[in-house]
């Protein structure tokens, strides 16, 4: 089922972008978790998770976002989310994630919000 999920992490300056695609469910969430953990272990704390190609998310996927956000913020970083398709955004909103995470329309806007925070 590998074809049903894709993940790609890119470091650029002090920003790490993790692009997700396909289905993020209990079967694929561990791969997402491992990728994030690896970037964080490498000292990366400013992270954008670009969900532009993400077609499905269940609570196992949402749990990964939950598990890392506090430590990232404590370390002076953040995890911001971009590109949610309406169906996926609805799940984030149903559970109140939109109140606790910064969600942007696209990757550039999410990246820009880090830059302006640094400038401010």
């Amino acid at each position, binding site marked *: 089922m590998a074809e049903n999920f894709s993940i790609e992490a890119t470091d650029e300056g002090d920003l790490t972008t993790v692009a997700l695609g396909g289905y993020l469910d209990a079967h694929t969430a561990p791969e997402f978790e491992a990728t994030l953990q690896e970037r964080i272990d490498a000292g990366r704390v400013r992270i954008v998770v670009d969900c532009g190609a993400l077609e499905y998310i*269940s*609570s196992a996927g949402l749990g990964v976002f*939950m*598990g890392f956000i506090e430590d990232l913020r404590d370390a002076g970083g953040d995890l911001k989310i971009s590109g949610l398709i309406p169906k996926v955004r609805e799940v984030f909103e*149903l559970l109140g994630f939109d109140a606790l995470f910064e969600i942007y329309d696209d990757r550039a806007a999410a990246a820009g919000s880090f830059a302006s925070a640094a400038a401010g």
Partner: protein
Amino acid sequence: MDVLEQTFTLHVPSSTKNLVMIRDFVNRVAEQAGLEESNRSKIELAVDEACCNVIEHAYGNDVSKEITVRATFDGDAVRISVIDSGAGFAPDEVPQEELRELIRQRRTGGLGMRLIKTLMDEVRYEIEPGRRNELHMVKKVRQG
């Protein structure tokens, strides 16, 4: 509406590998029941969550166990039951923490049952530990 009740049943080994198959199944049944896409997505997600709980909590990731998903529909509603023969539990005693609190505790779970209740119109557990535990979920075909 005069629609003959139809029953569809899927039995699969208890593994997260099979969630895609389970979601396909639920989607197809909901499509035939005449649900529009937004409600199909809701049922799909609720059943995924219910099966994940069975895989993890009822069966402790033992792939030799079997999950049953049974779906019926008539003109009024789609009814889905997720059935396991695992340990069972007391659904009413499961604490429901706020998202803010889950995050503070670095928790990575605790959202599944809330999601199921939010997504479906009726949710009811029927627990017979070690024999047959059923989670019954109903989605109305025409809302309001």
